[in-house]
């Protein structure tokens, strides 16, 4: 079986859940190999990658160099010479790395993919486009394929046979680049599940009037993350990292709850592929209702507390 490389995404020194999803997906395409840019992971990380099927964990000691797409791509190229398929998580930074890697290897690239399969020996991907109103299947015609996958599109599961996840250190000559990173100001990690990975997202828009108490409470009850519309982040009611939409984070949770959000096409582009969509809005003509599986025409100040109370009541038995 051919090697399928997965670029590990890390947070706080650990491989993220989407990474394990990608390794699970890689098993359906060949033999998964994880590529870790930075300091070598601790054994617990190797073990978890192995559970999902990674045969090797190739470590390229790259540190902050990996923040520069051209250097990350060179590191990745050195570690994936034997791989016909390279998978990574679809983020803005990875799209840049994918582009640079493709220019080094001649690979074809699809980003924002919701699925990958082999058809007659060629890689084909599934994407939703035009604010998730169309399904597109793309064939990668080049010998090598790079696919950036959206989180939450594969269910991570343990492999039948645990991978050895042997650490292999790879030396890479990283190119000189003309860009200099002058300053890096870390953004504190949000509490709980990150937006892109959350199984449930509860979002608030202009209709919250800046008060996220109820939105947050419902998100907590449902084990989800808090999202927002652009108007809400522009108002400074909640930080930019929470923005869902075409220019923010694209989410595909099992459940998306839009509270006081009108459903502008820019917003829908980032959430329309979600499993179940629920909307609460006082305006019966709000466009969000066109895509809501369950819509409530009502004031979120009345509807949310009642829903939260009912869920608590149900759980109490």
């Amino acid at each position: 079986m051919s090697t399928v490389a997965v670029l590990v995404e890390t947070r706080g020194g650990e491989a993220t859940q989407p990474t394990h999803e990608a390794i699970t997906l890689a098993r359906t395409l060949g033999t998964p190999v994880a590529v870790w840019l930075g300091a070598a992971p601790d054994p617990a990380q190797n073990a978890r990658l192995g559970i999902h099927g990674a045969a090797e964990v190739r470590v390229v000691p790259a540190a902050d160099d990996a923040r520069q797409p051209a250097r990350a791509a060179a590191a990745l190229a050195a570690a994936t010479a034997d791989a016909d398929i390279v998978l990574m998580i679809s983020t803005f930074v990875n799209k840049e790395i994918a582009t640079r890697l493709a220019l080094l290897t001649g690979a074809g690239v699809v980003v924002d993919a919701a699925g990958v399969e082999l058809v007659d020996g060629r890689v084909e991907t599934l994407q939703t486009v035009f604010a998730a109103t169309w399904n597109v299947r793309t064939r990668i015609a080049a010998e090598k394929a790079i696919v950036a996958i959206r989180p939450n599109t594969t269910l991570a599961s343990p492999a039948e046979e645990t991978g050895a996840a042997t650490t292999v250190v790879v030396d890479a000559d990283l190119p000189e680049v003309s860009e200099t990173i002058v300053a890096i100001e870390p953004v504190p990690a949000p509490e709980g599940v990150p937006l892109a990975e959350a199984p449930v997202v509860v979002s608030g828009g202009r209709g919250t009037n800046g008060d996220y108490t109820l939105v947050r409470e419902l998100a907590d009850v449902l084990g989800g993350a808090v999202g927002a519309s652009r108007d809400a982040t522009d108002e400074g009611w909640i930080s930019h990292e929470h923005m869902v939409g075409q220019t923010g984070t694209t989410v595909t949770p099992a459940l998306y709850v839009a509270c006081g959000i009108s459903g502008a096409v820019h917003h829908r582009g980032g959430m329309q592929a979600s499993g179940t969509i629920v909307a609460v809005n006082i305006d019966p003509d709000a466009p969000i209702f066109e895509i809501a599986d369950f819509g409530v025409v009502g004031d979120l100040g009345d509807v949310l507390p009642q829903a939260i109370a009912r869920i608590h009541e149900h759980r109490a038995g």
Partner: protein
Amino acid sequence: MVDPTIGVGNIAGKAPLMGTEPRPATLSRMRILVTVKFVPDLQSQRSFTEGAVTRTGDDGTMNELDENAVEAALQLKEAAGEGEVYALTVGGDDAVAAVRKALQLGVDHAIHVSDAAIAGSDVFGTAKVIAAAVRKVHDEAPLDLVVTGMAALDGLTSMLPTALAAELDWSQLTLASGLTVEDGTATIVRHLPDAHETVAAPLPAVVSVTDEANKPRYPNFKLIMAARSKPVTTWTLADLGISPEAVGLGAARTVVVDASPRPPRENRVKVTDTGDAGTQLADFLIERGLA
């Protein structure tokens, strides 16, 4: 959060210089090329025809996010006091509408690269064509910057700016929510999920700007009238010295093999709150195993 700034000067320190402020004598002309894509209007019924996006003059417009790119270029030129801004689009006949829109916003020159052989290009083919056009302008008189949008609202790959920088072998400064240019160096601030980076690079550079970077201006009547009589330069692949085999569907590393509209959501429920809609909502979630 860092204040988005577009201007000439020090990004961290002083306020950016805008067009109305007195300008230091040391600043020279700024020559900037902005890429603008012709895309189907977001509000229209967007569709595919035989694996390609249906593009018509009626429902097409300049990519909204390229308004931020045009705005950034105009502000830089105005702050420098002198210079030229070029708008460039690659696309079929109708795509000229994208550069016309840019003229209405105030760019000085418009270029439309059009050739039947470009149809079906992937990101790398498109980048090759744009790079050749950029070089042609750069050879006439050196450019300082190429400014692009953060994404085209149809393809949405956000890959083009990186591919273009690599193709040109110019500095890559992508996803800028703030941009300043001083002493031959461009500096941007980019907001990534884990950190806010400040990145500097020598000119010439390819810069992509986000929708946080600025608030695009509206075209005024005077500019709309003036834009009508401004010429649009049209180039073909031959003008750029690119062979038709190097781009287009034949050279594409990725090919759309199927496109179909997603079925609408079925059994949708909409209730009006008369006092118990919150309970109904919770029951719906419980029934679906979501709560």
